[in-house]
Structure formats: C-alpha cells, structure tokens
C-alpha cells in the first residue's frame, strides 16, 4: 500500500474539520474491509486516512420503541445480529448484517460503511431502503438527512460533500403487521458478491390479507442500488395474492437496468429480480403475519 498518515478523531467536530481541510486527499475508514482492499489494489489512494471508529456517535446502537433505531455508521455487523432485541424488531436488517462477508468480515464491516462504499451490490443497502432508512450526515455546515435511496450516486460514489461524514442510519419503528426480508443470489452458499439481490418490506392490514404499503429495492442491477418505488406502490390497497405479487415482481424487473459481466448476464439478472422479489415479498408477508 502507498504510505499514508492515519488519524483517529474522537469527535464529529474534529473529524469534520480534518476532512474539510483535506479535500479530496482523504479517505474515511470504518471497518476498512472494502477500503483497505481498494487502497492496496491502488484503486483508491489518499495521503490521509481518517479512522472514525473512535467517535462515540458512530458507535451508537439505540432503539426506542417510540422513536426507532439509530445505528452508528461504524457499528460492526456482528453487534447488530447478536442483539436479540434488534433481531426481533428488524429481521430484514439481520438478513443483510449476517450475510455480508464471513464471520471475520462481520467483526469489522459496518452497515454505514456498506452504504458509503456505494457498491451496486452492497447487501445492506436494499434492506435499509426497504425499511425506510435515513442517513444522518454531519458536515461543516451542520447536519442534514439524506434518504438512503438517494445516498448512492454512482458506483463507489455517494452524496457526501467535502467535509461530511455519515454519522448514523435511522430506521423508523416497524408498523403493526409489517415484515421485511433481503435475499440475494450467489453461485456459492456463502462469501460472494450478489449477482442480484432484493430487499422487500410490507405493511399489511389487521386481517393480514391485504397490503397497506410496500417498499422494494434491488441490488446489482444498475450503477447504484435501485429503489423500485412503482413496484412497491403497486401493492398498496391490493389483496395479498399470487397475482399482485407477480405484478410487483414484473415492475421490479422493469426497474432493473442490469449489465452483463463476469457475475451474470442481463437475462439471468432480470430473471433473478423476478424470483427474488416474489420470494422476499412472501417472506416479508409471513413475518408480517407473525410467522
């Protein structure tokens, strides 16, 4: 790796000042599981690396049944899925946290880092979009919120401006009769990059037979993760049926703009989006019904 300076600020203010005064010559490091690989391969270089793991606000895991979840951007995946309460409230988030990399990676990698890395295949991103996640950002001009679906702007690029850091991700309290699920297709059983992935969340009415609303998001089928709004919206007010789920899966396929590469073809990926949308909707429905 090219030489760099390494600093570990202990507050958001200190981090923002360091970032703002170094412009493009800086990389932020959380778990480092993507960033160090990119630095070593020479795909990214920076004379300064800012380790944000020492900032208290970035290590917060705070769930309040009336407010929702604030998840610090540097919290490693294992801390999320080992938390029994969070696992019970946000099983759709656990689906992602427990399949990113292997156990070694999950000891370091964070959901915030996965979002900032902005890979089209980032496994956490569709799940967090489906759950209505919001990015809490701090910068030289103060704080702002960015919807997770608006955060990734291109492969490896995000909406953070000079001097800004992602502090935490906010997830609203799940509504009554709601459920979520993330699934991806990979050729192996573990440790691979999604050929395609889908995160779905649904809210059902009290009978459990009708959709109130739904959100669907897609991985690995466009330059950024895709929020398939029309696909989710198509379910609002409809009865839970094979037909309505099929229709939503076709709209999700229409929202996908995949390319053919070493991991899969356009045709395979489009097919997978249909299958995974139906599967994740069905699992989300089952979870919403308390299954």
């Amino acid at each position, binding site marked *: *790796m*090219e*030489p*760099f*300076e*390494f600093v570990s600020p202990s507050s958001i203010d200190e981090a923002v000042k360091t970032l703002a005064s170094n412009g493009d010559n800086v990389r932020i490091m959380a*778990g*480092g*599981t993507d960033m*160090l*690989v990119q*630095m*070593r*391969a020479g795909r990214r270089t920076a*004379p300064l*690396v800012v*380790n944000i793991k020492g900032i208290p606000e970035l290590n917060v895991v705070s769930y309040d049944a009336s407010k929702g979840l604030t998840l610090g951007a540097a919290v490693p995946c*294992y801390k999320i899925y080992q938390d029994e309460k969070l696992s019970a409230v946000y099983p759709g988030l656990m689906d992602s946290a427990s399949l990113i*990399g*292997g*156990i*070694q*990676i999950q*000891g*370091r990698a964070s959901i915030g880092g996965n979002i900032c890395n902005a890979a089209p295949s980032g496994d956490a991103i569709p799940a967090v979009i489906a759950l209505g996640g919001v990015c809490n950002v701090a910068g030289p001009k103060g704080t702002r919120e960015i919807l997770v679906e608006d955060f990734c702007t291109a492969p490896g690029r995000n909406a953070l401006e000079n001097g800004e850091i992602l502090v935490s991700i906010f997830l609203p309290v799940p509504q009554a009769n709601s459920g979520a699920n993330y699934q991806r297709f990979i050729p192996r*059983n*573990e*440790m691979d990059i999604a050929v395609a992935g889908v995160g779905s969340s649904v809210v059902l009415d009290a009978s459990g037979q009708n959709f109130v609303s739904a959100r669907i998001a897609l991985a690995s089928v466009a330059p950024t993760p895709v929020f398939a709004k029309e696909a989710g919206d198509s379910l609002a007010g409809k009865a839970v049926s094979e037909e309505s789920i099929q229709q939503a899966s076709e709209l999700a396929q229409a929202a996908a703009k995949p390319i053919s590469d070493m991991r899969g073809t356009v045709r395979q990926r489009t097919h997978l989006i249909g299958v995974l949308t139906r599967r994740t909707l069905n699992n989300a429905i089952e979870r919403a019904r308390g299954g």
Partner: protein
Amino acid sequence: MPGVTQVQTTLNGEVVNFLCEPRQSLLECLRDVLGMTGTKEGCNDGNCGACTVMMDGRIVDSCLVLGVEAEGAEIMTIEGMASPEGLHPLQQSFLENAALQCGICTPGFLLASKGLLDQEPDADEGRIRHWLAGNLCRCTGYDKIVRAVLQVSKAK
C-alpha cells in the same frame, strides 16, 4: 512521508511494543516486524481467512486491520493457542483427524474454530460450516476440518 508510529498491544497475553507505518497491516506487523510467522498470508484481501487472528475476542482477517489499530487491543495468534501443558484441544483434534495437508490455512482455521467454540461450545455441523465459510482450504475438501471441530464441540 509519513513516519513510524509506536504501538502498544497485548499479544498472546504479553504486552508488546512495536514500530510500524500506518500503511502496514496487522498481518505485516505480526510477520515482518514482530517475527511471528505463524499467521499466514493467503489472498491479502479478506477472502481466504488464512491470516485470521483474534482481536479483542473476535476473529478478524489481520490483512484487513492496520497495525496501528492494534493499539490497546488484545491480539491472539496461533502462537498463543497451545499452553505449556500441551496443545489446545482443537490443535490435537486437527492432528488426530488429519485436518490439514499443506498447513497454510491451518492457523486461520484453528483461530476461527476457537472463536466459534469460545462463543458456542456446542456448535453443530451446520453452524461450524457456516462459521468457517470465511476460511478457504484447497487441500482437505473441508470434511476433515469440520469433523475435527465437531469432535471438540459439545454437540453430539
């Protein structure tokens, strides 16, 4: 040109100080600075698990940790696994089950297996296979490794 930093860490129960550049991974620091060559370099990008060590009780790929991040941490490598009384039960079981051939992946598998059984002493086969998915072995076909870990697990 960035200089060197002094790092103090607890390595296999002993406090050690070493000098490193920020760009050096914990793996490089262990092998090249401290001469602890039991930890192996495989892919050097977080895919193979050969460089697995324990950091504050959790397994990590030491190629994806910077040496400077070891400051104040507790690190355990393969060199710290056996005790003066003898091999760790997992090491003994790997020998008895012939769970290694070339041996490059073995320190990583042993640390990863220890990480699992420390946390889940009764891990079953499915759990062992899932947990060890981040460790690659190109010799054994995994079966003997899984059997060796299962023999030490309390799951029967």
